[in-house]
């Protein structure tokens, strides 16, 4: 209620303040990564905590990413094959599937799935901690919530995004292979050979860079909106759904940005 009134009062100022706070969280979290990895007591990262987060975020997402990416590989193959057949270039289907997957679909789809599983869970969990005075309790024990809560989730999301993307890429190729074998008279070996023919290290690496940045984005937006929760269970719900929507929008915009840069650089 109150936030709504303030928003009407000075939407511009509110927005700028919000972006500022977001920037500060981003800066603080990134700055805390180094010390938490290499320094000792009082600032160290809990490895157990990191492992826990990776498991929680990644394990749920893995089967979904495999399923979705395999389907996308198959869909791409079926969409492209008839067009390419007109020019007698059916085997090029493999190249198209590989290229689209590695450069674009792999990172993006993995990120969307991870937003659904990881991002929303992170926002809800941290939001609940805010409501239960747990963040204040951490601070009262001189434990920095950014280091203790944000950094492990951030690292977990980045690592899991890269892993999920690699797995997703492979699943898409497998999906394409299946269609190739069933309908296009391309056996898996031929499909594989065509797939790797056009692919460069650059395609693979740009995909993974995107994946890492997406991971950062998912975790930081979720943590930010989680920490911003006000006003009980309702606030947790609002910010959790907001996290999903805002993250997906941010992902697409970043993707556009990256693609433009890669386009100009010619990678």
């Amino acid at each position: 209620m109150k936030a709504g009134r303030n928003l009407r009062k000075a939407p511009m100022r509110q927005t700028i303040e919000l972006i500022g706070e977001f920037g500060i969280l981003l800066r603080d979290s990134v700055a805390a990564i180094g010390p938490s990895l290499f320094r000792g007591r009082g600032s160290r990262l809990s490895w157990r905590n990191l492992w826990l987060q990776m498991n929680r975020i990644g394990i749920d997402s893995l089967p979904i990413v495999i399923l979705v990416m395999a389907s996308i590989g198959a869909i791409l193959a079926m969409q492209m094959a008839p067009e390419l057949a007109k020019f007698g270039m059916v085997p090029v289907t493999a190249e198209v599937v590989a290229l689209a997957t590695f450069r674009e679909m792999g990172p993006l789809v993995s990120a969307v799935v991870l937003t659904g599983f990881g991002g929303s869970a992170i926002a809800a969990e941290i939001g609940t901690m805010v409501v239960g005075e747990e963040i204040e309790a951490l601070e009262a024990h001189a434990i920095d919530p950014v280091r203790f809560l944000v950094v492990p989730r951030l690292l977990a999301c980045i690592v899991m995004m890269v892993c999920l993307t690699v797995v997703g890429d492979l699943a898409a190729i497998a999906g394409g292979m299946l269609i190739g074998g069933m309908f296009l008279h391309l056996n898996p070996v031929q499909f594989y050979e065509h797939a790797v023919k056009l692919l460069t290290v650059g395609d693979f690496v740009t995909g993974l860079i995107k994946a890492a940045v997406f991971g950062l984005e998912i975790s930081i937006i979720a943590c930010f909106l989680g920490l911003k929760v006000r006003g009980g269970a309702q606030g947790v719900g609002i910010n959790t759904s907001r996290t999903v929507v805002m993250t997906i929008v941010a992902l697409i915009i970043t993707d556009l940005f990256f693609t433009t840069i890669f386009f100009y650089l010619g990678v």
Partner: protein
Amino acid sequence: MPREPMIELKGLRKSFGDQVLYDGLDLQVFPGETLVIMGGSGSGKSTLLRILMGHLPYDEGSVLIHSHELQDFSRRELNAWRLIVGVLFQTGALFNSMSLRENLALPVREHTDLPEELIQIMIKIYLQLVGLRESIDRMPSELSGGMKKRGGLARALMMQPRMLFYDEPTAGLDPVSSAQIAQLILDLKKKMDVTSIVITHDMKAAFEVADRMALLAGKRFHLIGTPEEFRTSKDPLVRQFVDGLLEGPLSPQSDQQAYEADLLHRDTD
């Protein structure tokens, strides 16, 4: 002997939006004493603890910790301050994703290099002290409100604080547990020389533990004095609060007219 106050409030003002919570709070807390703060629900007692912990900014006036302005503390100084203070939050504020054992272990693991066996022994000692040793491996969701609060107290004690802030330590406890906690507060003062600020509505416990008392009413401290002064004070407001009287300055008679107007106004909407 002139004593140097550990904490000193001077003309403290705090507001949330348009709502002014207090204006001109003055208070001194001396080393080794137990100060009880009383006040009606919503008078801003918990908020005062938050300010003292550096969780909330204040508008005007000063909060001096050993004569240093709290608002000017660096990150490092603030953490040093937070490490010597143990806080019992009103709800206990246990970490819900961790068992009671993990809750108690966390601050010690974070801030010291004590061997794990020693940490486990400390956990049992402090849980025994608050009567929760059997619940050591329970999750907070499996504890009652009073148990959570006692767990929160045990956690606050793990770092051997020199100062303790209790937010309603006995609210929601049965009379026996309540008496145990009051005894614990006294013991900590006697044996470990901790300085305490105790927020409570529980008059029995308040008079048991207090060296001095302060009553928060009408945006400032209405009276600060010894328990004896509170017992014998003729001030109607103090009498009403201490004796729990229905009639008195704290009763919202002046609200009556506004209330009626509000009701009638709503009706015509």
